[in-house]
């Protein structure tokens, strides 16, 4: 008799649990679920729509800063190297009346008009990785382009043993005002080589924004400059592509590569000795500081106009450690 009651009670409990589970988990997430806390500010960060390691790490840092400061961080992805998209995104952000915007200014003149509108609406503004397109009264966070070039040059000298022929690959169009920061990188490299007369820059190439350009360009360099000893690349996504061409052409050990960024493929090539090393901006802290500094401005405090973040030199000696750090940040 007792068994009957226990069975009934057990089934009753099971159905009750099923009903509770149904009520708790039955409602499907409509993608519009409420956050637990009402955020203090709404900050829009205009980023590139790219899977590059820099951007993923940057977004991770910004998101963590937003969580810590109870700020809603909205990432607006725009097409890479699209000036118009960048301006439209900034314009929309201003019309949206968000509390703060972090962006990269690519056209100073057009951007300044929007900056004025934003300032009229008391929207906090901040640029990042933007040291060459300086906007008046808009603070910036990021690494110094000249430093990037200089450190890349120094690493290149170590890679080729202080002598050799160098090919430099810069991302985007080098000429004109749009390529100011790239010019600064180039300037840094030239300055680094200035003390080494045995290092000769053979050619400077510029990567277009299209896909598969890297392989084509690198094949062309190797064809035109068969005695090249060192390739310096300032584009993150192109660095592993250049290494792959060297592998394909059986030039590993003949031509050294110093790249940019810390994509997993790049780190893998460094570990395998295909790429000598890479200069990497601290993307996590750039993103983190963007949000943190905007929150500081919104809280009514003043911040420095320019906040520099670290640069990392990654080579075979420390690539493993960097991979661990990188994984922790992710």
């Amino acid at each position, binding site marked *: *008799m*007792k068994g*009957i*009651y226990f*069975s*009934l*009670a057990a*089934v*009753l409990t099971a*159905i*009750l649990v*099923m*009903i509770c589970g*149904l*009520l708790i988990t*039955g*409602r*499907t997430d*409509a*993608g*519009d*679920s*409420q*956050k637990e*806390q*009402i*955020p203090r500010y*709404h900050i*829009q960060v205009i980023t590139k729509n790219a899977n590059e390691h820099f951007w993923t790490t940057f977004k991770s840092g910004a998101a963590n800063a937003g969580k810590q400061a109870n700020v*809603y961080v*909205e990432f607006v992805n725009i097409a890479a190297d699209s000036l118009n998209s960048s301006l*439209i995104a900034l*314009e*929309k*952000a201003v*019309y*949206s*009346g*968000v509390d703060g915007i972090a962006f990269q200014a690519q056209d100073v003149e057009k951007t300044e008009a929007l900056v004025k509108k934003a300032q009229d609406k008391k929207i906090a503004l901040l640029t990042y990785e933007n040291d060459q397109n300086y906007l008046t009264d808009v603070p910036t966070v990021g690494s110094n382009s000249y430093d990037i070039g200089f450190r890349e040059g120094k690493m290149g000298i170590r890679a080729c043993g202080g002598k050799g022929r160098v090919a430099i690959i810069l991302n985007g169009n080098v000429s004109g005002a749009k390529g100011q920061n790239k010019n600064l990188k180039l300037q840094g490299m030239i300055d680094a080589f200035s003390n080494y007369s045995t290092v000769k820059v053979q050619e400077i190439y510029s990567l277009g924004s299209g896909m598969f350009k890297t392989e084509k360009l690198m094949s062309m360099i190797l064809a035109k400059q068969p005695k090249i000893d060192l390739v310096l690349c300032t584009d993150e996504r192109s660095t592993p592509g250049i290494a792959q061409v060297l592998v394909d052409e059986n030039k590993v050990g003949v031509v050294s590569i110093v790249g940019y960024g810390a994509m997993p493929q790049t780190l893998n090539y460094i570990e395998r000795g295909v790429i000598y090393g890479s200069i990497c901006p601290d993307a996590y802290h750039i993103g983190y500081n963007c949000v943190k500094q905007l929150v500081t401005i919104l809280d009514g405090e003043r911040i420095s106009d320019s906040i520099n973040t670290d640069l990392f030199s990654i080579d075979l000696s420390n690539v493993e450690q960097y991979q661990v750090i990188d994984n922790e940040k992710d």
Partner: protein
Amino acid sequence: MRKIKLFETRKMKYRTKLILFFLLSTSIVILSSLYLYLSSQIIMWNTNEMLEKNLELSEAYSRLQEVQNDLELYLSTSSSDSLIAFYGDSTALNKSSDTLLSNISYSERGMKIKNAANMLHDYLNNANDAIEKKRGRNITAYTAIYEETVTECDDITNYMEEIMSRDVISNSSQFGKISVQQQKFSIINNILIVFTVLFVIGMIALFSFEVTKPITTLAGFARRIASGDFNIKIPQDQTSQEMQTLYHVFGSMVVNIKEYVNQIQEKRRLEQTLSEEKLTNLRMKNALRESELKALQSQVNPHFIFNTINIGSKIAMLQGDHTTCRYLENAADIFRYNLNGLDTAATLEEEVSNVVSYMYLLQTRFSDMIRFKLVIDRSDKELMGCTLPRMTLQPLIENAYIHGIGCREEGGTIGLKVEKRDGMAWIEVSDDGCGISEEKIHEILSGSFQDESTDERSTTGGHTTGLGLDNVLQRLRIYFNKTDVMSIKRAGGMTRFTLILPLRHEKGWVHVSSTDR
């Protein structure tokens, strides 16, 4: 460790058990139905939510185009109709954007809705500015603002389309989830329905069996008892309070019935014994009455005869006829002895004296044909004082005379020997007459013997007392409450009737001395 019991079903009442079972079963059915209802409701809620979530956004999107058209129309035509339409549509758009803002959530989509709503507010401000400048005829200003509203309208439109496009993608994903959920619910519901039906039916069957089991068992016991089998042990039932009581009471009832039946059987046995005793008494009384009747038949008026004979003896004594006197005295003694009644006891000495008187009459009558030999120790007071039914020895002597020596021409000797042996009184009446067959001995001792001398008085010539051997034997057996009071033997030409009687007998009839009369 003390065991904590949630509830003890054995102590529960039947009503509580039934209520609890039906409550639990009904609850299972109700909750299963509730689960089915909720699952369908959730599917409906999710579907509605999916379809309704961008209604407001679509409404705002449509209004925006209308407001922009109204603005352009008014700025180009300055018509009051377009102005009225603008105000109407802009008010509706403002309301839509307010609704969007009031419902925002801090999610990715929510923040985009917020951005869109803020952009709409900004756009409406600019549009109103443009209207105001137009009405103020500030051509440069309204043209510039209009340019800005066009850009802004495009931006907002793109932005909303982007949100709606994401909603479409999200809805596809959402629809997929709802579809999967619906299939899952469908499977779970089907299983739940089947399980609930089977489980509840199973539980009802099991519960019914468990509830009726003790009653069925009890009914089995009742059937056994009804068939007369009281040798059953009723076990203690622990299923419920009522059953415990019922089993306990039933057990007690069985024990009581068993005891009652035993008592009835004992009583019946006692009644049977009593009836037998009563029957024996009746037989005894019947024998006595028969004896009395026969005595009365033979003694028309014993007192008169006794007095007559007694006076006769006195007359004979006065006339000097001593033989006649003695004869009549002995006859008077016999009558007087008989007057005391057969239902009284007499001592052995009195019985022997009566026999001596009787033998004197016979010897006087038949002179030397009959010889009487008496062996007795009259000094033994215990032997002489032992009691026995009155008129016990005289019929035996009479029997020896009639059936023994009576059939012999030359006569014979009748012997009476009284002695104490092994604490018993041995009284032997013997004769050397014609003897007795074994068959007759058996008939006499078994009580089936019919004494002809008592029935056919005429054949005996009127010298009997009318009491037969069977009468004597019955009275002795009743008096001493034992059957082996007499033995009959025929050996060496002698027939011996031997009475073996206890010297002391507590239960006895009233002893009346011959001198009491």
